[in-house]
C-alpha cells in the first residue's frame, strides 16, 4: 500500500487559522551570508557545545568550531570561512542568554568539510552512519532540538520497527517542510531510507497533513521502487498533529507511555528537515550549517521561504523579505502556537529556527488574569488529556504539589488550552512556571533512587 489515510486520530487538539497560503507556494531561496554570524553554543537540548576555537582564530567553512559536551549535546560547524571575532553571552531565540561565537565571514566562502561523502550507505554499518549524523551536528529541526544521533542509537532492548517522517507541519504560517517535500521529494525518501537502514526499521511512513495536497502528491510520485514497506500516511489537519507522541498514535495507534519515549513502542519520528539534513550529511558529507526558515506574518513585506545559515540575525532575514511593513508588535521565532516571542530582531537563528513571524497588532491577543469560568474547553482541546483549568488554578494558588499530582509534568506546552480559553488566561505560562518549580525541587532533592 502506497498511500493510506491515518487510521487513528488523537483526541483533543485545535484548529487554528493556518495562514499557510502566504508562503506555501514560495520556493526555497538561498540567502547570502550576513556581515556577521552569531552562532549560539546552545542550539540543541542538553549541554551547550564546547568551543574549539578562540577569538581571532580563522576558520574555514564546514570546520567543527564547537564539540558536543557530553552524551546529550551536539557539535557545531562554521557556516563559512572567516575570523572569530568574539565569544560571549548572547540572546537566543528561546529567551535565555547562552555563550555564542561571533564570526565575521571573509567573503571567500572557503569550504572544507571534514566528513567524506558516504554514497554506498547500504553497505555501511548502522553504527557508523549514526556516528556520522552526530559528527554533522544534526539535531531535531522541528523545534525541540534533541540530538538526532542519540535518537538513532536506541538500546538493544528497544527494537525499532517503525520510522515516521514527520511532515505534518501543524504550526500556523510555517511551510518550510512543505517546500522540502515538494522540491526535494526523492532526497527526503532517500534520507528516510538511510534512517530506516540505521534503525533496521521495517515500516517507513511519511506523514503529511491533508492541508498539503501538493506535498502528498509529490511524495507519492517519488516513492522509490526499491523501498519496501514505504507508505505515505495522510493525517487529518489538526494541531498538534506534529507532536511525536500524537503522530505515533495517529499513524500506528500505539500509545507512548507517559514519561516514556517513542522507542518504547518501537517507533522513531524524524522531522522532514532533519531527514533532509541527514541525507546531506551522509551522501554529501555536509555538516548542518544551513536550514530552511519561513519568514512570514502580516507585518513583513514579502513573506518567503529561505535557506539561511545558522547564526544569521533575524533582522537580516527580515531585510531579505522586504523589511517590516505596517506596525510590528510581536516577533515570534517558530510557529504561533509553540514559538517564542522575541525581545528584538537582533537575535540570531539556530538549527531549530523553523520560522520567523512578524505580527501586527491585529494578529496579537493579550493575555489577562480573568478568573476561570470552568467552561471546559481546555479539557477538550488538551491533546495530553490533562485538565488545564484545574491545573492553572492549583498553580495560581501556589499549590504546586497538587499540580504535580495532577500530572502537570505531562504537559508539553502545545498551547491548545490557552488558544481556546475564552478568559484569555496565560495557561501555558502557568504550566511552565509549575514545571520549572518542580524541576528545581527535583534537582534539589538529588537524583532519584533506582
Amino acid at each position, binding site marked *: 500500500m502506497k498511500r493510506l489515510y491515518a487510521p487513528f486520530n488523537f483526541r483533543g487538539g485545535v484548529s487554528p487559522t493556518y495562514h499557510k497560503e502566504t508562503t506555501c507556494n514560495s520556493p526555497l531561496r538561498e540567502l547570502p551570508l550576513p556581515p556577521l554570524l552569531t552562532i549560539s553554543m546552545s542550539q540543541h537540548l542538553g549541554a551547550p557545545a564546547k568551543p574549539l576555537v578562540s577569538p581571532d582564530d580563522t576558520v574555514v567553512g564546514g570546520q567543527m568550531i564547537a564539540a558536543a559536551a557530553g552524551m546529550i549535546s551536539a557539535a557545531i560547524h562554521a557556516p563559512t570561512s572567516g575570523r572569530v571575532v568574539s565569544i560571549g553571552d548572547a*540572546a537566543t531565540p528561546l*529567551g*535565555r*542568554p547562552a555563550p555564542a561565537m561571533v564570526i565575521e565571514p571573509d567573503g571567500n566562502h572557503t569550504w572544507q568539510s571534514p566528513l567524506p561523502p558516504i554514497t554506498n550507505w547500504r553497505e555501511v554499518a548502522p553504527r557508523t552512519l549514526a556516528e556520522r549524523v552526530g559528527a554533522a551536528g544534526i539535531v531535531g529541526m522541528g523545534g525541540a532540538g534533541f540530538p538526532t544521533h542519540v535518537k538513532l542509537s536506541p538500546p538493544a532492548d528497544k527494537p525499532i520497527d517503525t520510522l515516521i517522517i514527520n511532515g505534518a507541519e501543524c504550526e500556523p504560517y510555517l511551510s518550510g517542510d512543505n517546500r522540502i517535500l515538494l522540491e526535494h521529494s526523492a532526497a527526503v525518501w532517500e534520507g528516510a531510507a538511510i534512517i530506516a537502514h540505521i534503525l533496521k526499521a521495517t515500516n517507513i511512513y511519511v506523514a503529511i497533513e491533508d492541508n498539503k495536497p501538493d506535498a502528498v502528491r509529490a511524495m507519492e510520485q517519488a516513492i522509490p521502487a526499491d523501498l519496501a514497506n514505504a507508505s505515505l500516511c495522510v493525517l487529518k489537519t489538526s494541531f498538534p498533529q506534529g507532536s511525536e507522541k500524537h503522530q505515533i498514535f495517529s499513524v500506528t495507534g500505539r500509545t507512548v507511555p507517559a514519561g516514556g519515549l517513542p522507542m518504547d513502542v518501537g517507533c522513531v519520528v524524524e522531522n522532514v528537515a532533519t531527514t533532509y539534513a541527514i541525507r546531506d550529511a551522509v551522501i554529501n558529507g555536509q555538516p548542518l550549517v544551513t536550514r530552511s526558515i519561513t519568514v512570514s506574518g502580516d507585518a513583513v513585506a514579502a513573506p518567503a521561504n529561505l535557506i539561511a545559515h545558522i547564526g544569521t540575525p533575524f533582522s537580516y532575514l527580515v531585510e531579505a523579505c522586504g523589511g517590516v511593513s505596517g506596525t510590528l508588535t510581536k516577533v515570534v521565532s517558530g510557529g504561533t502556537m509553540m514559538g*517564542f*516571542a*522575541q*525581545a*528584538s530582531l537582533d537575535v540570531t537563528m539556530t538549527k531549530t529556527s523553523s520560522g520567523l513571524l512578524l505580527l501586527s497588532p491585529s494578529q496579537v491577543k*493579550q*493575555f489577562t*488574569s480573568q478568573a476561570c469560568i470552568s467552561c471546559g474547553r481546555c479539557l477538550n482541546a488538551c491533546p495530553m488529556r490533562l485538565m488545564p483549568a484545574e491545573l492553572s488554578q492549583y498553580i495560581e494558588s501556589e499549590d504546586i504539589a497538587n499540580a504535580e499530582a495532577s500530572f502537570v509534568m505531562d504537559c508539553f506546552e502545545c498551547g491548545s488550552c490557552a488558544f481556546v480559553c475564552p478568559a484569555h488566561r*496565560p495557561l501555558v*505560562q*502557568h504550566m*511552565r*512556571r509549575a514545571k*520549572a*518549580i518542580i524541576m528545581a525541587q527535583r534537582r534539589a532533592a538529588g537524583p532519584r533512587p533506582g
Partner: protein
Amino acid sequence: MNEWLTPIMWIGGIGAFCGGALALAAYYLSVPEDPRIEQVTNELPGANCGGCGFAGCADYAKALVENKTSPDRCPVASSAAVQAIGALLGKAVVASGRKVALVLCGGCNTEAIRHFSYNGITDCAAAAAIAGGDKACSFGCLGYGSCLRVCPVNCITMVDGVAKIDSSACIGCGKCVAACPRNLIQLVPEEAKIHVLCSSRDKGSVVRKVCGVGCIGCRICVKLSDGAISMDGFLAKVDYTKPPLTNEELVEKCPGKCIRKVG
C-alpha cells in the same frame, strides 16, 4: 411549662454529657509534654513566619527543647527574648544584631529601561523566563512582586517598578531573599544605612545603556570607604561584617548614583 423546659433540659443534658466526655478524654488521652515547650513558645514572637526554617513558633520551640537547633535562629525575637530562651534551656546565647532585608536595586521605571512590553502572569520568575525579562538590565528588579507575596508581615511595596522594603516593619525572616529569582535581596544589619543599590555585574558601558542609577565600576567608593566597599568584578559591594558606613561623601561622589542612604 414543658414547652420550654424540655428543650432546655435536653440541650443542657447533651452539653453536660459531651463536656464530661471531653474532660475524661483530656485526662486519660493526654500526651505528656515538656512544660518548657510552652514557656519557650511564649517567649518567641508568635509571628509564625517560618524564618527559622521550622513550621512555626511552636514547632521551633519544640525543636529547641529537644536540643535540635540553637536559639539564635529566630530572626524576629528581640535579644532579650533570645537570652530568656537561653536561660530556660540552660544555654549561653550570644545575640546577633537585628537584620533586615534590603533590595539591592534602585532601577525604578524612570531610571532603568524596559526593552519590551511583557504580557503574562505577575510573577518574577515566570517573567524572567520569557526573553530574559523585560527589564533591559539582566540583573535588575523586575517588579512583578514575587517577594511581596511571600512577606509574612506585608512590609514590601512596589514603588515605581522596584520592590521597597520597610525596614522598620521587616522581621528579617528571609523569605523574600529566597523568592527573588534575581537574588537581589540581602539581609543586612539594621544599623547600616549606606548601601550600593545595584547588583549588575555588567561592564559600566553596558550598565549605562540600560540604567541611570547602576554601578559603573568606577572604584571611587572603594578609595573613600576604608575597605568597607570592595569590587567584585565590575560591581562595588559593601562588606556588612565591617562597621556600618557613615561617610556621606560616598553618596555624593558616586557617579552612577547607586550608593544611597536608606532609612
